[in-house]
């Protein structure tokens, strides 16, 4: 992916391979994450995102490859490096027997030994995640969104330099999701490097400065969101409401050089076009020439799902 080997990279993964018997979960992947980045690992379920994270965190052994954090080789016993990390796992990892405050204090205590400083960190984390009203509650009484926030608070209370978020917004309501993403932005602005894994392309597009797309253990594409979108042919997708499909319209649209695909379903004509400056005008012109009566018209820029679809032939959420 990125051939230059920056010595100050926050994370450097080189030729990582992880096998489970005959199954190759991670297949020779390499990438670098610069300090201060929000780096996205995007891919469908089972693509190797969590496995990659676990290898970086030294929770899994791997068959081949090198991993460095902050320019230093990573190992299970590099506690100095571990002290600078934060982990927010995919599943809720808190103790049911402890309250919200106690849970955060416990996990923070694994990183921060000074009592006074830790108390400050805990209170800050509670405030950061909006858990002030629930600090004395036990996890069983919290809603799904609050549990996720607690899960995050436990992972970032000690203000890590490098934080790993493994699908932190699964099964979370829209409001909580927005708050979580905002919180990550704030963390990043404060100087933290973030590694964010998800199969929600909207979040990754919104949050991440650079993205690597994984599929079946390979990185199939990597770069900024714009770079990734520029790699594919798909430009915008134009949708036109039509009560009836005029004769010959679809054929004429498909004859257009920039038209990649035209389909009519549920009174809506959908045209995928290659990148071009006048796609909307050209499509509406053809509709008019065929005596179509358009209703609402809208245009959607290409998404990472389009990128994935073009690269693999499948949707991200297949």
């Amino acid at each position, binding site marked *: 992916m990125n051939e230059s080997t920056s010595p100050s990279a926050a994370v450097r993964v*080189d*030729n990582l391979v992880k096998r489970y018997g005959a199954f190759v979960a991670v297949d020779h992947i390499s990438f670098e994450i610069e300090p201060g980045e929000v780096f996205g690992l995007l891919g469908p379920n089972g693509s190797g995102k969590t496995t990659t994270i*676990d290898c970086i*965190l*030294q*929770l*899994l*052994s*791997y*068959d*081949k*490859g*090198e*991993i460095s954090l902050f320019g230093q*080789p*990573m*190992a*299970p*016993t*590099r*506690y*100095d490096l*571990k*002290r600078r*990390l934060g*982990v927010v*796992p*995919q*599943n*809720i*990892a*808190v*103790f049911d*027997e*402890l309250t919200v405050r*106690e849970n955060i*204090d*416990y*996990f923070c*205590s*694994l*990183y921060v030994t000074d009592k006074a400083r830790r108390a400050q960190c805990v209170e800050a984390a509670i405030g950061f995640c909006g858990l002030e009203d629930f600090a004395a509650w036990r996890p069983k009484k919290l809603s799904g969104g609050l549990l996720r926030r607690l899960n995050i608070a*436990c*992972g970032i209370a000690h203000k890590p330099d490098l934080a790993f978020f493994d699908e932190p917004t699964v099964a979370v309501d829209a409001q909580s999701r927005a708050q979580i993403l905002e919180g990550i932005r704030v963390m990043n602005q404060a100087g933290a490097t973030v590694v964010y894994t998800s199969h929600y392309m909207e979040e990754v597009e919104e949050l991440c400065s650079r993205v690597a797309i994984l599929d079946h253990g390979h990185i199939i594409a990597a770069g900024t969101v714009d770079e990734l979108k520029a790699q594919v042919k798909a430009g915008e997708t134009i949708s036109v409401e039509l009560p009836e499909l005029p004769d010959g319209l679809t054929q004429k649209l498909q004859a257009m050089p920039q038209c990649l695909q035209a389909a009519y379903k549920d009174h809506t004509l959908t045209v995928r076009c290659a990148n071009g400056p006048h796609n909307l005008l050209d499509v509406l012109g053809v509709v008019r020439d065929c005596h179509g009566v358009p209703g609402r018209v809208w245009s959607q820029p290409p998404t990472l799902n389009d990128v994935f679809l073009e690269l693999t032939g499948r949707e991200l959420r297949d």
Partner: protein
Amino acid sequence: MRVCKYALKMAARRPLFFLIYAVGLSVMGVVMALAVTRAEPAGSLQDVVRPQLEWGLVDEDRSELVAGLIDSLDELGPRVEVAQDRLAQEEAVAQGSVDCLFIVPAGFEEAFLKAARAGESLPSLDAAYGFTGAGGALASAAAERWLASAALAAAAHPEASAAQVAEEATRAARKTASVELMATPDAAEASSANAFTFYLEWSIYTTIASIIACTAALFTTFNRTDVRRRDLASPLTYRSFTLQVALAALAVTLACWLVSTAIGLLVFWQDAVALGAAGLASTLLASLAFMLFPLSVSFLAGQFGVSSQGANALGNLLGMAISFMGGAWISMTLLGPEIQAVARFTPGWWYTNALMSAQELAGSSHSAAVGSSILTDVGVVALFSVVLFCIALIAGKLREQTAAAGGNGAVQES
């Protein structure tokens, strides 16, 4: 020590669990010890000449001869009343209520006297044995003895009435052979049972089950997959983390031990005092050392990620096996040499040895030797725990993932 502190906090927030296992099972141990009167076989002459049996007799004849037989059988032990119906008789032998049940048919006296005086084969009465052949045989032999004397009396005095024959048989049966106990050079002194010691011995099962259940709950909490990932990803060394959790489990174990011992001391305080200061101290030391064994088993199971149900089952199984091997259920002398040999490889055997030795400490003239023996036994018990604990640490270390491959394999521990 934050991990330890929070582990204890979590354990303290499950009081019901602790109460059920630690207190509930300890009370069960008390009930066991209270309800049972254990007659320690002392190897004395009395036990050979006058063993105690439970016998029954269904008298369908209701004659004076049989009344004489019944009087003579009283020397065997208490007579158990058994009803005449078949089911009651079956129940008596099937449940072991009697070692031997005699059934005297109707017309027995008349037939017996007639046959004895004619020199013919004597009629027989039926004897159904209980659980042990020896008990039944002894009762039968006692009945045979009296009937033989009665037959002789009847034959020698044809004119005598049944009552006179019975009286003569009873008088003749008082003539006995001499019985002596063969001396051996190393005959052990008999020791009487101490109820507190007995409680501790019986509690092997309940304390193993309760400690494993209570501590396994703690290990299971920390073994949940994502919690464990978080802990492993932290800068806290695995060794420190494991030891802190183990320390919390040790505190839980000590709490279980205190509860169990306190309950025992409360109920059996007189027997505890009778042990003397040295005996009591040795007993408690042995008990404390033994408590470490289920802790180390639980710790080892935790390193393999055994669930709380699995640990519960393990505690029950191991508790029964260890208490059996310690001779709590059945006297070790009754078991085969192979079982006795295997028992020496279990901590229960050494623990009960220590308890028995501690009992002897008070009245013994060889207290130094006995004390040394106790310390040896306690040391072996503790050794079991140490070995298991070491195995658990190694297993945990192996379970912790290492980056052994590729370039990172060359990184040395900082």
